[in-house]
Structure formats: structure tokens, C-alpha cells
């Protein structure tokens, strides 16, 4: 199986990474090399194998739902890319 240019563009759309044609062609080559290497897994019959879902054999813990940090608005907004006081700013989304 090989990945064509159309698929590369589709994946880049899904991944929200814009790429030009030159980059897309380079990526096509890289991805095909990598997937050729990955295809090795098809040698194995895994019909009766259960997929591993967690490497740490624990069940998730419950905790009380309580507020531990208060008044952290400033901290949360501190690293936002656009200067503002109270909100994250993004390009207009509603016409």
C-alpha cells in the first residue's frame, strides 16, 4: 500500500498543518518509507490477542470534586498570544 499526494493533503487537513506542494511531496516519500517499515507487523497473526490498553495495571482513582486553586484567571491568561484582560482572543468565528 502506498500513500499518495491526495492522502498526504487530507492528513494535513485533519492535523491542521498547512503544507505546500513541495513539502507534501517530500512528506509523501518519508511517510511511505516509514509505513513500509511499519507493515512488518502484518507478518503477525493477532486475531486472538487482546489489545493492550494500559501499561500501568491500575484502575483510575476517584477523588472528591473540589476546588483547589482559586483566583488563577491571571495565571491562566498570562501566556495567551494576544494581549487582553479577561479573555482569550481569536479571529472572528461568527459572521
Amino acid at each position, binding site marked *: 500500500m502506498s*500513500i499518495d499526494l491526495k*492522502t*498526504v493533503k487530507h*492528513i*494535513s487537513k*485533519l*492535523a*491542521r*498543518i*498547512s*503544507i505546500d506542494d513541495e513539502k507534501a511531496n517530500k*512528506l509523501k516519500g*518519508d*511517510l511511505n*518509507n*516509514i509505513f513500509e*517499515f*511499519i*507493515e*512488518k*507487523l*502484518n*507478518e*503477525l497473526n*493477532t486475531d486472538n*490477542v*487482546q*489489545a*493492550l*490498553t*494500559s*501499561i*500501568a495495571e*491500575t484502575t*483510575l*482513582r476517584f*477523588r472528591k470534586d473540589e476546588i483547589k486553586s482559586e483566583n*488563577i484567571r491571571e*495565571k*491562566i491568561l*498570562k*501566556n*495567551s*498570544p*494576544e494581549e487582553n484582560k479577561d479573555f*482569550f482572543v*481569536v*479571529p*472572528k*468565528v461568527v459572521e
Partner: protein
Amino acid sequence: MSDITSQSLFELTSNIKEKKLSSEEITKAFIDRAEKSKKLNVYVTDNFEKAIDQSNKFDSNPNFDLKLPGIPIAVKDLFCTNGVRTTAGSKILNNFVPTYESTVTQNLWSQGAILLGKLNCDEFAMGSSNETSFFGNVQNPVGENLVPGGSSGGSSAAVAANLTPVTIGTDTGGSIRQPASFTGTVGLKPTYGSCSRYGIVAFASSLDQAGPMTKNVRDCSMLLEVISSFDQKDSTSIDYKRNNYSKELSKDIKGKKIGIPKEYRVDNMPEEIEQLWKNGISYAKDCGAEIIDISLPHTNYALPTYYIVAPAEASSNLARYDGVKYGFRSPGQNLIEMYEKTRSEGFGDEVKRRIMIGTYVLSSGYYDAYYLKAQKVRQLIKKDFDDVFSKVDAILTPSTPSSAFKIGEKTNDPVSMYLNDIFTVPINLAGLPGISIPAGKDKNNYPLGLQVIGKPFDEQNILNISYALEDKINFKNDISDWWLSE
């Protein structure tokens, strides 16, 4: 007394406790050396001024009961440090200053350590040579224009070059052990769930672990003791009684059963590595260990499995970098265009490649063929280890299939770069602890490492085996300080 910066953590700690050295003297010595070592490019961000203030504070009111009393330590730039820029080696986090502290670094400061600065690494820890960093490649102190390994390349170079007494790195597929092997230092990846992942920039959440990188095994045990802890803030942190690793460190490994997996004898492995492994086996025998031939039949499938699982998790984790809440933003006409431009300009090529692989294997129609398949093979790989650990106490293998390579040598061939991690990746997939110790040199005089793999939570055992082997190997890292400037 030997030069301050060449002392081990154990020596520095003793000298501080015996008041032969002050925290300020030690901190200044490391800073002076760093100022002359810019050519290595180990630091992304330094914290020198604050570090001197903190060392003064320690000296004026010292607490010698702490495990790292006034010891300056630089850490990989993947750990969030409150108020100190944290980049993960990426343009997209170039201006990110965390308002919180990772648990593992908090454990260091709680035991008296002082932050020296943040060390270079591959972007988002994706790489095996430190060449994917937005902040440029790192020089291996072992030789000019040689990679220090990766992704914890700034960390391994800093320890080998005496720019920090010890450091912490992170290991997703070999990112602590491979750079340790390339620089003649010691690096340990703990059992998954031992060290908290809270506040570490996430790469692949089911594989990532933080661990110590040091000059020797004793320092490694001292540092592991500090950073390993149960943490409510990490849902996969495991609550078990941690050892007092340094106190229980012992060279007595008589009767220990050590497995030698035949599948690690890969094609085209250099003769020197084969010889290194044989030497390791004979040293283990000299120490009274019993050598047992074992088989880990699915070893060859570990790398392809890893290159599905790790990118899949990475593509999900890195979805958060959208230019909205923090980090770099590239403006766009609308929201989608802003996302696409931000991510296209903010991420480097290797990170984009892995996001693309991950997005593909998780996308509709391919999930079963790739991701589910990989999770099944991961089960088989884990079972291989479960089976042999009913017969042996630990496993001995080479750490890497080669010594350090030249900068630029493998950058155009992702798959050949990935093959670097052939001996380290299976251990992450199975969640086991593994340590790399320097064990010899190749014909170019570049260091080579041996890896000891243990049962889950059996860090003490692999530390003890390494401690015994280290004594027999008696490795000397003769580094010439070629990079120093006045």
C-alpha cells in the same frame, strides 16, 4: 580536593555537609564553566543569577538533612518550571513561561537543589540526536561534531562535560539511555508509573517517564530516590513503597539470574558491540551472577509498533498547540487558517512528520489496521518479558547498535535514525525499568553502553547489578575539554 565541577553528586553532597564547600562556591564553579562552554549549546535558558541568590540563601540558613543540600542542577527543557521559560525545544513554546512546577522538579527543590537552567533537547523529545531542536544541535563533549544522542542530548552532554553534577531527562523510546550511552554517562528509565508525569510536556503518554542522568551508578540511585514519588496529579502514578535506593545499593549480586536475549544479536551489529556485550556477560559471571540464554521472540516488531503508538499519542497530545491559549501564534484570516499557519510555522519537520503519521493511523478506516494492530503486538511484546521474568531477575543487552554518529549523518533518513532505539524501545512498550551504563569504547574512542532491564518496580536490582558491573568495567571517560573558550 579535585576540581569542583568534576566531582560526583555523592562527593559534592558530602563536601557541603562537612562544610568543605559552600553551595555558592559550587554554583559559581558550574556557572563559570558554563560561560566557557557555549560552543556545546547545552543551555536553552539559564537561571544563573537566581541560582546564585538561592545558593546564598541556602548558605545563610543551611539544612544538611536534605538529600540535595544546596546542589545546583540543570534539567531538560521538557519539565515545566514555575517562572522559568520552558520550550520543549520548540518554536511553538518559545515564549512559554509556566505558572506551575512539574512534580519531579518540585521534588528536587524540596530536597534543597537549585535550578541552574534548562537544557536543550530534541523538539518535543522527538529525535535521537538533538538535531530536531529549534535551538540548534548540541555538541557531544566526547568529540567535535558528534551528536550527544537524543532526545535528552543537552542533558547527556551537560553531565559528560561537567556542566551540572547530575540531571533529569525523559525517556519515551530511549531518550535517556541512548544519549547516556553516546556520552559515557549513566541514565535510568524507571518503571512506568514511578515518576510523576505532571508538568512534563507530553509526547506519548503511555510511554513517557522521567529519570536520572548521572556520572555514576551511586549518583543515579541518589537522584532516583528524590524524584520517584506517588502523585495524585498523575492518574497513572502508582502508589507503592519506594526503596531507599542509595542506602540499599549493593555490589553483591551473587546468584542473580541474568538473561541474555538472542534476538538482540541483530544483523550488521558492529563487532565491537558484540565484544562489549561478551565482556559484560563475563563480568556478571565474575560477580557470581548466573547467565541464562533467553528468547524475546517479538523483539523485531517493537520498533514498528512504537512508530504507530508513539506518533498516535503524540498527534493527540500536540492537538493542544493551536495558538489560542499559549505559545506561538501566526495570524490568519479566520480561525482554521490561524490554526493551520500556527502549527505549520510553529512545529519543526520531525514533529510534523510524527503528527502526520499519528493522525493517519488514528483516522477513520485505518484505526484497526494500524493502531489496534500495534496495541495487540504491544501485548505480545509485554508477554515476552512477563514470560522470561519468571526465569530471570534481569536482562543484559547493549544499549545502542552503534556509538555516537556525526552531526548531519542521519538527518535525511528518518528510518535509519529510528533504528538507533532498537534496543531501548521494547522496554518502554512493556513499561519496564532500564538503565544504561558506560561499558567500553569503540575504535574511535567513543563510549558504548550496556543496558540492564528489570522487572516492574525492581529498580534496586538493576541499580545493584549496574553498580557491580561498573566496578569491574572501570570505565574512564577521557574528555579533553576541546570546546572551552576563555
